[in-house]
């Protein structure tokens, strides 16, 4: 009986399935797949600035420029943009994870009034990048003389944007890690205590290994977020930065597209961004198999 009904269901379902799937498929086709293929196509052409149509075959010209192969016009250094994006990610991701982990370990203790502290530690989750950037632009404002050269010095500008980004990321990372710590069975800690393990040993032997899926999840989300960072650079810097030191990939894309109307080059940068994130995803997918899931 059960088997018969499944068979009956599966035959009838063919057409129905596509009806349910249609809205999502149409939307993805229009706003994800077609635009992506279009960007791929445009990246090989000189593009007409008025009609936005490919005008002349340009081969791998834009890609050669992005990777500084062949002649570079006007001393452009586009590889630097990719390097800057990696640097920014390497600043933001570890600081976010370590900072949020410290907050979560601190807030995991059960004492009176801990709820207030937890809410405070979560608060930045409610603050958009644009709002946070406006607030931090005043912290860095020269008039206030706290960190007055932070954004104009080529050595500190990227760090200054990273610090703001870490602060904005903290709330989300904190609350996810706190949930992860609370999911660890209590008896594990108790038996460690009975065995005479100190707090440091407990952290390295029990807490961190059991948190590794959570940490990996945060590693993925914050890495992808850092690679796509744009808002904070637009609001805080609004240029390539002192000595081009904050010209991250998505900002370079914005400049090529919006300021210079160089659509073919912007399309090539889009494809490079896609490829970099794809490689990152694959690496992280491989890592996923190695973490503890207990």
């Amino acid at each position, binding site marked *: 009986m059960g088997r018969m009904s499944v068979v009956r269901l599966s035959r009838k*379902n063919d057409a129905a*399935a596509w009806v349910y*799937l249609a809205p*999502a*498929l149409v*939307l*993805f086709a*229009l*706003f*994800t*797949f*077609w*635009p992506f293929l279009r*960007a791929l196509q445009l990246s090989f052409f000189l593009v007409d600035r008025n009609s*936005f149509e490919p005008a002349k075959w340009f081969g791998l010209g834009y890609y050669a420029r992005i990777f500084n192969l062949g002649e570079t016009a006007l001393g452009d250094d586009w590889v630097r943009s990719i390097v800057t994006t990696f640097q920014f990610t390497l600043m933001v991701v570890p600081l976010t994870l370590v900072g949020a982990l410290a*907050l979560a370990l*601190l807030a995991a*203790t059960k*004492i009176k009034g*801990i709820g207030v*502290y937890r809410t*405070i*530690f*979560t*608060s*930045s*989750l*409610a*603050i*958009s*990048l*644009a*709002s*946070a950037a*406006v*607030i*931090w632009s*005043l*912290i860095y404002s020269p*008039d*206030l003389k*706290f960190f007055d050269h932070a954004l104009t010095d080529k050595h500190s500008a990227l760090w200054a944007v990273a610090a703001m980004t870490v*602060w904005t990321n903290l709330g989300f990372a904190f*609350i996810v890690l706190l*949930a*992860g710590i609370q*999911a660890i069975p209590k008896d594990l800690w108790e038996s460690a205590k009975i065995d005479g393990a100190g707090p440091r040993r407990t952290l390295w032997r029990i807490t961190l290994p059991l948190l590794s*899926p*959570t940490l990996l*999840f945060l590693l993925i989300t914050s890495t992808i977020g850092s690679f*796509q960072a*744009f*808002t904070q650079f*637009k*609001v805080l810097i609004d240029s390539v930065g002192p000595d081009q030191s904050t010209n991250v990939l998505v900002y370079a894309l*914005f400049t090529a*597209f919006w300021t210079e109307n160089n659509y073919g080059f912007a399309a090539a940068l*889009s494809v490079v*961004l*896609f490829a970099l994130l794809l490689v990152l995803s694959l690496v992280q997918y491989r890592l996923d198999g190695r973490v503890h899931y207990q």
Partner: protein
Amino acid sequence: MKKALLYGALTATAFAVLFPLLFSLSLALQGETVSPHLWPDPTKLDFGVFAQVFRKEPLLGRWMLNSWVVSVAVTAGQLLVSILAAYPLALFQFRGKSVVFFLFLASFMVPWESTILPNYLTIAHWGWKDSYQALIVPFLATGFGIFLLRQAFLIVPAELREAADMEGCGRSRFLWSILVPLTKPALATLGIWAFLNTWNQYYWPLLVVDNPVWRTTQVGITAFRSNEIASYNLPMAATIVVLLPTVLVLFAGQKQLVEGLTAGAVKG
């Protein structure tokens, strides 16, 4: 003694985390001054600034309305599209299922920033610049939402499906009167996530809006800041005003959001 140390550490970190917010509040309340102090004079707090900001920027109210309309519409649309797409993906057998699965997974892999140029050209070509549809329609389908709901739908026991099937419960009735009510937590998670993300969007609204009337709050406050470069209190007050809705959504749905998002990551 140990407890006092713990409270000390908690309070110090809480203060550090809150500092940018306290600082913005401090600047907002200091009145119009070219050289504000770190902390305001508590006897001269200027709360009138929050009313003043709406007078100084008459469009601020409109920007907030725009953000609400767009965020609510995208949230509702993402829920609907994801429910519909996740249903056959979780419970039907049909030819081409693996292709669809692959396509949705692939949509995950394409970052929005990589498609922004052709998408902008499409929207401009359709004459959609300066409109709600430009801010809403491109975001209605999300691979994240579809996979989140598919996962939730899979957990519904097979016996329930068979029982419903035998009682002649139609396909669409099964979805709306059994599956959807049973998976409310996942739907709430997706809803909160969609709302926060849409409310916080910046890049796309910056591109497709020329007329200030159609700005969302995020683009609005950054433009406002550039215009009011001489004073600090007004931009800070505007920033605090536009923070409130997300703060409320977050505190209302914080627990739900975390449980939903980390169900996979934490439990493994």
